[in-house]
């Protein structure tokens, strides 16, 4: 990942952050646009979660990683604390690999 890409992402991010204080009297985000952006972000996150857990280099990544993510997803849906969710994903996947499931 080149430095230029990091700077570009940082600049875009900062633009969203400074827009509020700069334009708060002149700009309002329509509720519909805000909902669409929230949905788009969710679609992107879930698609990234699915591809990064199921695939590796264009092929299947094995069962251990998606299993860890699935357990984490269930715990997160049950509103368990974030550290528990993240650690559960690692522990489930590590245990499966230890048992020979890859």
């Amino acid at each position, binding site marked *: 990942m080149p430095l230029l890409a990091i700077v570009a992402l940082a600049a875009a991010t*900062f633009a969203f952050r400074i827009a509020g204080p700069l334009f708060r009297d002149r700009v309002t985000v329509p509720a519909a646009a805000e909902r669409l952006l929230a949905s788009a972000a969710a679609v992107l996150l879930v698609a990234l979660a699915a591809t990064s857990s199921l695939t590796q280099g264009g092929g299947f990544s094995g069962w251990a990683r*998606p299993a860890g993510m699935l357990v984490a997803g269930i715990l997160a849906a049950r509103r368990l604390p974030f550290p528990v*969710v993240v650690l559960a994903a690692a522990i489930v996947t590590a245990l499966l690999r230890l048992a020979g499931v890859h």
Partner: protein
Amino acid sequence: MRIAWRTTDRELFRDVALVCLADGIVGVSFGATAVAGGLPWWVPIVMSLLVFAGGAQFAAVGVVLAGGSPVAAVAAGALLNTRLLPYSLAVADVTGPSGAGSGGAGRRWLTRLLGAQLTTDESVAFALRHTDPAPRRKAFWACGVSLFTVWNVAVLLGVLAGTVVKNTAAFGLDATFPAVLLALALPTLADSRTRAAAGTGAAAAVALTPVLPAGLPVVAALGGLACLWRRR
């Protein structure tokens, strides 16, 4: 009549500490996975300082580690961060310098830029718990400054861990990556149409991964948004 509910300093400290603990664990996992995936050690560190947005950092690095182009990585990260625009509007009253007598023009600008950089899901949530200006400001800055410190130290520790521990796969570290992304998406998935859009998009992205160049399947997933306009 009860005066507007106020958290005491002790409660604020406790809640900020809990959020920092959670994000610290995520930060360690971010630094370690990025380095274990083959990125240079400075990438997660510089990114955490400049971008300072966990979800976008995970997304961008995820695209790159999957072999995607830097352009796709920046696009994915920037799209996730569009939510910071409504956030920054919502807390615009506290991110800047406080009223009169807080230094010269240069210093006021510095405060404004710093406050903007500290705008995250967490600091905004802390600010929005209050309506009075003073506690609002205090909660925002306490959370923002603590989180910025903890996040960057945690990523640094993760980078060190990822460099020292050769076989991070044995510890299941790679599974924390999709787990964080999924957990971040969950609150929005309460809406059934968004859930349908996300499910459709994810299925399409996985199906397209063997055929499309890396990075593009995730962008193609946005086609799932068409589900938002179907009838309930």
